[in-house]
C-alpha cells in the first residue's frame, strides 16, 4: 500500500491539472515529485517538507495559494514502483530517479563483470578501468554512476598467520 497526495495547479486557461504529488515512502518520509515546470523550486519545497517533518495531511503549511490545491490523501493498493510510474506519467514527471526506491538500478543491473587493474606505484594504489567501462576511477577511488565513491585502502599490517591445525 502506498499513501499519496496530488497537488493541482490552475493553468492560464482556468483548468486544474496535476503536475506534482507527494508520496510517503517506506520509512515515512514524504517526497514531493514534480514536473519540470517547477524547475528548482520543486526541490526547495521538497527540502522544506522534509526538514519540517510534515505528514501528507500537513502539506498546506508549506505549499498553498489561490491557484494551488491539494487533493485528499489516497491510499493505493499497488506497490511503490508501479504507483510512482503511473503518477509520474499523470503529473508529467520524467522517469523515476533511482534515489527514491533504489529498485530501478537493480532491475536494469548489468550482469557483465567489469575488471579493474590495480597497480601499486610508489606505495600508492592506482586503479585503471577499461576505456569502454561506465566506471570512472582516479587513483584509489572508484566513482559510481549514482555519484557515490568507493575508496580502496591498502592495509600495511601483515595478514595474521594461520593457526596450525
Amino acid at each position, binding site marked *: 500500500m502506498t499513501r499519496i497526495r496530488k497537488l493541482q*495547479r*490552475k*493553468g*492560464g*486557461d482556468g*483548468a486544474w*491539472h496535476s*503536475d506534482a504529488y507527494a508520496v510517503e515512502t517506506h520509512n515515512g518520509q514524504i517526497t514531493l515529485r*514534480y*514536473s*519540470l*515546470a*517547477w*524547475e*528548482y*523550486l*520543486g*526541490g*526547495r519545497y*521538497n*527540502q522544506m517538507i522534509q526538514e519540517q517533518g510534515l505528514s501528507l495531511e500537513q502539506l498546506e503549511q508549506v505549499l498553498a*495559494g*489561490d*491557484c*494551488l490545491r491539494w487533493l485528499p490523501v489516497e491510499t493505493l493498493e499497488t506497490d511503490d514502483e508501479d504507483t510512482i510510474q503511473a503518477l509520474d506519467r499523470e*503529473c*508529467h*514527471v*520524467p*522517469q523515476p*530517479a*533511482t*534515489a527514491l526506491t533504489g529498485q530501478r538500478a537493480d532491475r536494469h543491473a548489468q550482469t557483465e563483470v567489469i575488471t579493474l587493474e590495480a597497480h601499486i606505484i610508489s606505495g600508492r594504489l592506482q586503479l585503471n578501468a577499461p576505456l569502454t567501462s*561506465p566506471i*570512472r576511477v*582516479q587513483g584509489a577511488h572508484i*566513482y559510481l*554512476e*549514482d*555519484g*557515490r*565513491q568507493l575508496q580502496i585502502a591498502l592495509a600495511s599490517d601483515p595478514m595474521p598467520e594461520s593457526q596450525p591445525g
Partner: protein
Amino acid sequence: MPTNQYQQLLARFDPVGLNRYGITADDLQCIERYIHILQSGLNETVWDEAVQIGGPYGASILIHEIVEIRTLQQIGIDPYRYTQKELARVLADHLSAHVVAIYEEHLYLQDVLLRQYGCHFEVATLVKANRADDTDLNYLLESDIGVFLLEQDRVEEAKTYLEQLRQGRV
C-alpha cells in the same frame, strides 16, 4: 514589461555570462514569457528570483532557461504555443533539453567560481550544492551527456561559495 526595460534589465546580470550565451533583451523577454507559461499560479517564480538576485548567479538562472528554450527550438518545438500542462508534458518527453540546461548552467557557475574565488568544483558537485534535492543531480547522472565526478566531501564548501555568489560577495 516595455521592450526598453528588458534592455535596462540586462545591466543587472554578469556581462560575461550574457555574452558567452548571446543573451539579448529579446531573450529576456522570451525567458519571462516561457517562465510565465510554466510557473503561473506559483507563489514565486525563477524569473522573479533571477531578476532579484542579478549578477553572475542571476545570469546562471537565465542561462539555464535560454539553453532549455533553444534546445527545444532546435528540435522543432515552439514552447510558446503550449499551455502549462502541455509544456510540462513536452519537457518530460524531451528531458535532454532540461539536462543540457542543467549542465550549461553549472558549467558557467564552475567558471564564475574559478574566476571570482579561485576554486574549482566538478559540475556534479555544483549541481548537488545548488539544488535543494537530488532530482536534477539524478537527471544529470543518468543522462548520456557524460560521466560526472561528484566530490561528496566538497559539497558543503561549494554551497558556501554559491551562497556568497547569491549574496553578491566577492
